């Protein structure tokens, strides 16, 4: 579908412009694009993410007009935004909650990609660009969380930047280089602000590549069966999917608005309303909820370097996922075993998030109590996280490669067209 264009300039001006800068053609081909007619609501999260990215960019640029990236003024400037700037009380929570909403949407988008095999040939590059976007989102979100310069901002920055000190030989030098000094301090805050401002534009560029890479093979679909007949299997993206996406986007915005206006603090940590204090360590340093699964993996390994490798490896493995999954069948709808292991995988990720929010010594369940000391014994979150981390890796490195060779998939529909026809007795 790349290079294929149905744009037919009608007016004289359109013809004139098309011969010089075919920008209308670009827009036309982007939106009047053959799209499988059987996409379900899980496919609307790409559009939702695009809207959220725009919302983050607009609120972020306005916030940057009022924010002061200095250790002495950062906290107060966020307060100033919330208390004095016109509509600052709305923009600041929109931006903070918006980050959570982006991660919520991106996780659904990624689980959808895994379930329906959207990373498989010929969409490997589309998937990899997506993983790069996710990685940049993690970096951007982390640096953004540091900017309000509350206790969790400061100590979160301390924990994450310290991870690099685990690198053999150069660890300390790299950490000092990242900090711009010998601790998290003003130079760190300044560079985080600079990078937090610029990275979203890198994300925007990658999103354009992501959409471009989507337009070459076209959308995957819930059956995973490729488009065979463009006329029978597909519909133009506009108006069919613009209107469906618009409905889903508005519903998602209602969830977003409920958080922004009625519980702006629900997804954050109260400690971040305390000014950063380098001499007082909070009792529990926890990252934002969307990093918790990785935080659990980090702490599941007793060795620091090992923990860092396991944590970053969990993202690295996503890059090679297209080649780890050996099954030729895209959609797990027709792969009963893969489907089962996939749902366990989703639960494992949620369980890891739970473990990340708890202290490793906390107990998942109690099996007994020491009569003398009154101390409980039982299954700790440390071991809970270890088992789930193991499953995370086994899913990608063993289950998906082996299942593709041994699993017998169910019969798939001949075509997208056939899959959507309602079974009307004999005729179907």
């Amino acid at each position, binding site marked *: 579908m790349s290079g294929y264009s149905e744009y037919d300039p009608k007016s004289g001006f359109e013809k004139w412009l098309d011969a010089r800068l075919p920008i209308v053609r670009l827009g036309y081909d982007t939106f009047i694009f053959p799209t499988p007619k059987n996409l379900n609501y899980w496919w609307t999260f790409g559009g939702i993410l695009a809207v959220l990215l725009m919302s983050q960019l607009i609120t972020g640029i306005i916030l940057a007009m009022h924010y002061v990236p200095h250790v002495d003024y950062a906290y107060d400037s966020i307060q100033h935004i919330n208390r004095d700037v016109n509509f600052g009380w709305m923009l600041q929570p929109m931006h903070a909650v918006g980050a959570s909403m982006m991660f919520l949407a991106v996780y659904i988008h990624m689980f959808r990609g895994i379930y329906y095999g959207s990373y498989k040939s010929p969409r490997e590059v589309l998937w990899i660009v997506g993983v790069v976007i996710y990685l940049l989102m993690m970096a951007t979100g982390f640096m953004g969380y540091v900017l309000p310069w509350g206790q969790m901002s400061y100590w979160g920055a301390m924990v994450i930047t310290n991870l690099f000190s685990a690198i053999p030989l150069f660890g300390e030098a790299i950490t000092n280089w990242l900090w711009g000094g010998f601790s998290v301090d003003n130079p760190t805050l300044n560079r985080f602000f600079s990078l937090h401002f610029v990275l979203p534009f890198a994300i925007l560029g990658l999103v354009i590549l992501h959409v471009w890479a989507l337009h070459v093979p076209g959308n995957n679909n819930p059956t995973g069966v490729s488009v065979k007949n463009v006329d029978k299997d597909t519909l133009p993206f506009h108006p069919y999917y613009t209107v469906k996406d618009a409905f889903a986007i508005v519903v998602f915005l209602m969830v977003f608005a409920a958080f922004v206006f009625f519980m702006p603090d629900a997804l954050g940590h*109260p400690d971040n309303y305390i000014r950063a204090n380098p001499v007082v360590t909070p009792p529990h340093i926890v990252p934002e909820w969307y990093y918790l699964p990785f935080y659990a993996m980090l702490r599941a390994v007793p060795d620091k370097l090992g923990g860092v490798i396991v944590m970053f490896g969990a993202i690295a493995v996503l890059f090679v996922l297209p080649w780890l999954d050996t099954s030729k069948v895209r959609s797990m709808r027709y792969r009963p075993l893969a489907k089962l292991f996939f749902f366990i995988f989703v639960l494992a990720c949620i369980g890891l998030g739970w473990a990340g929010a708890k202290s490793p010594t906390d107990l998942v369940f109690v099996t007994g109590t020491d009569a003398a000391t009154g101390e409980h014994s039982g299954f700790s979150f440390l071991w809970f996280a270890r088992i789930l981390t193991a499953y995370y890796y086994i899913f990608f490195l063993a289950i998906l490669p082996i299942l593709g060779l041994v699993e017998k998939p169910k019969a798939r529909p001949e075509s997208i067209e056939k899959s959507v026809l309602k079974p009307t007795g004999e005729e179907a």
Partner: protein
Amino acid sequence: MRLSILTAALIAAASLGLSAGTASASEGAELKSKHFSFEGVFGTYDKAAAQRGFMVYQQSCSSCHAMSLVAIRNLGDPGAPFYDEEYPNPNENPVIKAIAEMFTVQDGPDDEGDMFERPAKPFDYFPSPFANDQAARASNGGALPPDFSMLVRARPHGPQYIYSLLTSYEDEAPEGVELRDGMSYNSAFAGGQIGMPPPLFDELVEYTDGTHASVEQMSNDVVTFMAWAADPKMETRKRMGWMVLIYLFIFALLMYGSYKAVWKDVEH
């Protein structure tokens, strides 16, 4: 089935995110359950309680606790304890002016280069009781009285926590607990030993509206006032929130109708 499992997973993930923020801290101490006027999606600040709370703050708390992010004029903003519809500009509100005159602030330097004292104006911020954290610690047995500006939002279950703290002082420490010098026993405080001596006594404040100033009543009032100080735009935000949600709901219905109309002839 497939859909419902994923939906359940999502709800679980979302609720996990919710609990992650509040899971820590406040352990080891039971909080009293108490409902405040400003809680819930329709909650607003009980203005009379917030005004009484301001009296409690001023006559008791403010001798140790700063509230550095709140300006005197803020007391007369929409949604604030002393808002008066006749004076949309709080700087003209006579109540706010009178409150401002109760404070003295340092200004300067003047033309000779000297700092001088003057009565506060509505645009001034609440003066802090101590010059710096060190001075505050030195006067309070080494403990630092936290700033009130964001305190309610800076503690898990902030309103309940502060209410419990104010009403859970005990004259005697339970057996086996050795109180350190200058400490008081408070069952709502982590560890039980708190540097702040009991700040409230019955009839400590003489309420001008005739309300009986019990410890529970004053605690309720000052928490309401502190909640306003930490979230002064809450009423504006909730009001806007309802308009946004109603707008989006109608928009969603329109989009759903459009979706059904556009897809009417497509079997999918």
